[in-house]
């Protein structure tokens, strides 16, 4: 039965997933086990996306189904689930840029691949990145941007991290519409990821996972 939920959610069968969760909850099953299965299913979704079998709509829809499952399970949950994470990542769209679709996909993929992600949102001032790095101790920073105007914001953000004396403590990756290896050099970041999966690969490499 556990396998059912994992498979049905990974296959994006919303109605069946809802029914299974309802049945398992009314059978008095431990809510945490249900959430654990859901998490496993999201791992499968992430893998299928990485393999080119799933595309953005599939990711978005899996997120919607997961939200529905979480809402059903939450009221029965005694305490928040503790999961072991690979590492922390601070991520956001840089100052002056309010694009979020690409950033959200990277956040999603890092999350399902076991990272604890601090999503700072869009139009994030350099200082906010610096503060969050200090506060969380995250060793990885992701800068997202869609506009050519983001090139300079990224450069300023990397500089602010440097000025705060944190440059040696973090690895910085950039990504988004008009980014490239040339822009990586321009901004002083450590790496450019061409898509969400490249971001995950970089993060895994950096934490030695």
């Amino acid at each position, binding site marked *: 039965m556990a396998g059912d939920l994992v498979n049905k959610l990974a296959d994006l069968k919303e109605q069946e997933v809802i029914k299974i969760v309802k049945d398992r909850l009314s059978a008095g099953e431990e809510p945490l086990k249900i959430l654990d299965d859901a998490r496993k299913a999201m791992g499968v979704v992430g893998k299928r996306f990485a393999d080119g079998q799933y595309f953005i709509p599939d990711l*978005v*829809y899996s997120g*919607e189904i997961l939200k529905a499952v979480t809402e059903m399970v939450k009221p029965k949950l005694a305490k928040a689930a503790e999961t072991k994470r690979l590492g922390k990542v601070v991520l956001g769209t840089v100052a002056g840029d309010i694009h979020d679709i690409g950033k959200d996909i990277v956040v999603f993929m890092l999350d399902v691949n076991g990272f604890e992600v601090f999503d700072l949102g869009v139009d994030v001032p350099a200082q906010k990145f610096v503060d969050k790095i200090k506060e969380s101790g995250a060793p990885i920073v992701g800068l997202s941007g869609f506009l050519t105007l983001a090139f300079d914001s990224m450069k300023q953000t990397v500089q602010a991290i440097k000025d705060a004396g944190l440059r040696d403590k973090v690895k910085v990756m950039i990504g988004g519409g*008009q*980014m490239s290896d040339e*822009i990586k050099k321009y901004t002083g970041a450590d790496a450019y990821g061409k898509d969400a999966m490249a971001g995950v690969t970089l993060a895994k490499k950096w934490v030695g996972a």
Partner: protein
Amino acid sequence: MEKQWEEMSSDEKQEELFAKWLSPKDPEGKDLKFQSPQAEKAFKERITRIKDAIQMKKLPDRVPVFVAPSFFPVYYAGITPQESMYDYEKCNMAFKKFVTDFEPDGHLGAYVPGPGKLFEILDYKLYSWPGHGVAPEQSYQANEGEYMTADEYDALIDDPSNYFSSTYLPRVFGALEGFKMLPALTGILEMYGVALNFIPFGLPPVQATYKALFEAGAEALKWIGAMGAWNGEITAAGFPLIVAGFTKAPFDVVGDTLRGTRGIMVDMYRQPDKLLEAMDRLTPLMIKMGVGAAQVNGNPLVFMPLHKGADGFLSDEQFKKFYWPTFRKVMMGLIAEGVVPMPAAEGHWTTRLEVVQDLPKGKTLWMIDQSDMVKAKKTLGKVACLFGNVPSDLLVVGTPQQVKDYVKNLIDTCAKGGGFIVSNGAFFDQAKAENVHAMVDAAREYGVYK
């Protein structure tokens, strides 16, 4: 006797629209007076060059070159996007400097900034613009959201115009709140009961909305007056504006500003039939929008920015089911009326090229951003003129020599046999001026057909 429009074939209609583009008029409807015979000659040569590249019947004298910026002319002229949106004279000065300094064969006019005051009067919520959500020195950006909710497909399908006026527009323009109270105008039928329909127009919220509309209308007239004067001046100097207007692929109409990216993607699973029906309903409206723009402006080129069909946004199967059929229908409807659809394949479209080449030859003009150009030429490039691909990052951090080398390679790859125009691939805000010059120079230097 000349043939009537209705009797013409689509080829003849296209020729007719190109002929109109070649003979621009002044505001009184008389032939426009060019600055000099040289300017007139240059204007006609430029359009002929573009026309030959599009039609793919004969080789142009050389590969044409476009420069298609977003806010670049504004930064280049040393003003801020905020100034360009609120001071139409400054806006015109910036775009004039841009066109006359870089001398492209085709340009996009001075329409990018738009009238900031009008957006303020209407309390436009769909975008953040300089001073309203983004800094004065930044470009405007869209605020994505579900401005149409998941349960409103039937309302949209039943009566798109009424759905827009009573539901969608009041959500994206704060000042149009009063539209919510208006009746469907198709209920105004005969003496008995007719007066009931006018009750809402007496109510204060509706009157406040109309007051805002009058102010917005006055501002729009002021803006278009400035734009019209600019177009006349720049045309008289010999530089053609390449777009008559725009329309969109129905999937993007729903996915960009109605349901939003997340909304449309979930709808593909939860209510695919409604989504398909809505896109069918929007298709003739998008055709009319494009045809109308081409006829009013006497220019066959109608721009179509493409968004949610890019690689990765949809699977191949999803693209073929949801995106391509109505997008193709819109293009075919435009082509039938002599219009040249000008889709901009923003981002990567490499995996779509084989699908989208199912088009009649010499009838479309495609802006290509980061797709594989070798493949693009071998597929879509067989039936359609391509332009673009010079990358934004190269224009910002590259050197003029690197830009020239890039353009030379593009010409070698894509220009053989015609059907190619040199251009940047994405609408850019920033670039080094010398790199933009290098792009234009390279087209002239390497693009001559012998």
